[in-house]
């Protein structure tokens, strides 16, 4: 089960955070700082899985953006690793150039919608790009009209 999903920039500022298990607000900042610190301090040759308290952290770096997912013991780390890439590809298709952080930041609500389409309550729901983006595209058309 996925416990949390974070997108962080290189300076350590959180750009997106989604918790699937309740964590107190003040503990969240602490958690995020520690998690980010352990991810940022790793070099390129090290593996992408870290053990942190009773979670496992799986992270992937895309230029200036780090995506960190915390899971519990039962998850397959490599599948989650693949899932992160899937998510980035979906964002890529929607925003047509996701690696620029600004798109994500300024459309945070849309990113939340996409994430909600893909993960529900810590479990992966949908991984097919077209199906994920369908409702969003409808929504956009509605708000334009």
């Amino acid at each position: 089960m996925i416990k949390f999903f974070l997108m962080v920039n290189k300076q350590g500022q959180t750009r997106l955070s989604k918790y699937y298990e309740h964590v107190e607000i003040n503990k969240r900042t602490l958690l995020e700082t520690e998690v980010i610190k352990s991810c940022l301090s790793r070099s390129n040759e090290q593996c992408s899985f870290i053990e942190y308290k009773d979670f496992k952290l799986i992270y992937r770096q895309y230029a200036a953006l780090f995506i960190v997912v915390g899971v519990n013991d039962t998850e397959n780390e490599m599948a989650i690793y693949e899932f992160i890439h899937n998510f980035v590809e979906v964002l890529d298709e929607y925003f047509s150039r996701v690696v620029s952080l600004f798109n994500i930041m300024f459309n945070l609500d849309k990113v939340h919608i996409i994430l909600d389409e893909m993960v529900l309550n810590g479990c992966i729901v949908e991984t097919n790009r077209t199906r994920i983006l369908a409702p969003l595209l409808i929504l956009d058309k509605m708000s334009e009209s």
Partner: protein
Amino acid sequence: MVVTSLKLQDLIEEIRGAKTQAQEREVIQRECAHIRASFRDGDPAQRHRQLAKLLYVHMLGYPAHFGQMECLKLIASPRFTDKRVGYLGAMLLLDERHDAHLLITNSIKNDLSQGFQPVQGLALCTLSTMGSADMCRDLVPEVEKLLLQPSPYVRKKAILTAVHMIRKAPELSSVFLPPCTQLLQEHHHGILLTTMTLITELCEQSPAALRHFRKVVPQLVQILRTLVTTGYSAEHSIAGVSDPFLQVQILRLLRILGRSHEESSEAMNDLLAQVATNTDTSRNAGSAILFETVLTIMDIRSAAGLRVLAVNILGRFLLNSDKNIRYVALTSLLRLVQSDHGAVQRHRPTVVECLQETDASLSRRALELSLALVNSSNVRAMIRELQAFLEYCPPDLRADCASGILLAAERFAPSKRWHIDTILHVLTTVGTHVRDDAVANLIQLIGGARELHAYSVCRLYSALANDISQQPLVQVAAWCIGEFGDLLLEGNCEETEPLQVEEEEVLALLEKVLQSHLSLPATRAYALTALMKLSTRFRGDNNRIRQVVSIYGSCVDVELQQRAVEYNTLFRKYDHMRAAILERMPLVERGGTRVEEEEKESNKAAQLSEAAAPVPAEPQASKLLDLLHLLDGSSGEAPCPPPQDPPPGGTLVHLLDLPCAPAPPAAIPDCKAFERDGVQLNLSFIRPPETPALLLITVTTTNSSGGDVTHFTCQAAVPKSLQLQLQAPSGDTVPARSSLPITQLFRILNPNKAPLRLKLRLTYHHLGQSVQETFEVNNLPVETWQ
């Protein structure tokens, strides 16, 4: 002056523009004030913008609880954009702990039954994230209906919401069990994926569900087979593998179903073999599937051939250049090593290579796995590798590595000498990280190996001469030099180069240890005792030693001071006993309990206490009785030394029973105090040895006559210098000719050893008469008060 409120994008820009934390806070506070104002009386059409800004601020960590009611209002509004933001806010801001969340239940219920699909999706999403048990129970009928709706978009979400509901309220699992069979027949991958999750959750919750779902194993196998064998399908393929997520989920479910169940495992065997061999592992997706397959093979009752296949796959993973794959392989091998030890052994060389990884998580895994792989045949090679690793491993792994090596050496040591060498090596490399009992273990080991005494002391001496900073090493070396100093001087050890050492050098080294500021107090204590022992081992005169000992008699550290003073006394007053006291230590038993020495001097040994807590008393050797008080009442065994303390310095002999204290309490004869018409009063005495002033008298009243004795009371009086305490009698009736006497206990304190006189007064009814007798007991034995 009205400052117009910002759009979300502008707000983000401004926050990013803030150069300091204080500036950012200012911007946010200003904006929050606007938001609050607009919530109170602002335009409803703009409300969702305000809330969106609030959510962003919340994500940065600022308090946003005043937005909770707004979420509710937005959810209730008919517009989709409002609902969207409202539900998002509900997910982020509300949770079970706030009472406000129950207010959403009604809105969710309306949306679920009447809303159109995206709205239903939203509602389901929110419900699955923050629904409490009560909410779940209320909304079960709606969710159930949605499970069977034709639209897959809503169905998949409904299924996952069902998963959440079951987690919160396990009794609902019976509701969601029946639809599963129908759901499995769908083709939509989203539905299949979520159904797998639902079934997994149901099986984990109840064993009955587990049995029910074992029947669908063939169906699952079929689905997986279709996935694996069909060719490229544009919709779901990721890196050439068709829907790896679904495959992984099915494999996980198969694992749960097949665990410890023969039949299902058999049904899966072929499929697992097929997946394992056919999956393309050049990309990560394939490796993920393979990993899950391996985990499944390990958990179910699979055929032996399949398990070997799994281990080989893991071995292949180990050779892969991708770190992630290696990490995953090491973790799984660790789990396997208990059950399939032989198979994992074949990959030992690769594992050992992984020790040299720069990545901390990898090297930790490799270390654990290597330690698990050590067995009696490969112990020498493995320990050599591990010792090499110890030299350059990162600090946080050192303690684990050291204790692992020591443990493995203990279990599999081929020879004592090798064992001692290994421990010595560990101590010299990472002495500060070893566990506390390593010192005690090593000392015990050396003590037990008679033939290696000379060898160990020579090696320890050279190690100590090199470096006195590693405390455990110094402690062991000091102990050995003290014990076997004579062997060191002889210097004729055949296994190392002959070492020519003079007495003066050895003494100088020990003094250096004593004076060094690197030495812990415990180490100093070891060194001091070692010096003392050398006074008997060495042949030269002991002036130097006596000097050092007397210097430390005024040391600030209380433990050292006490020892020094005692040793000094040993020199001055008990010189004749010194040799006997400082003899070689007997072998210490494991666990710290000590064995009495065989050749004790009798009667005159003084107990030199080695209390762990410093007892700041000067031993007055002449007043042996006072020393007795330092003991606790046991018969002279000192308590087990706690692990941090050094085992006794080797000079100390146990207290022997001194002649003035009675060893076992001498039995004092009973005396009959009174006899009349078959009623007898008997006195028995006990004087506990640890409290010589106390006398315990048990008065036993028996009746051998034909009539009962009733209303029996006994009172006593003693001279004024004694103290008497009467305890309650066991009863006041003695039936005729019974074997159930009345007993009563008297306690008499006689600190001055005054002569004991006892007057008794009895009153009772016997044979129809009431009897009253007062008399003095005049046949008290002398031992009762002397």
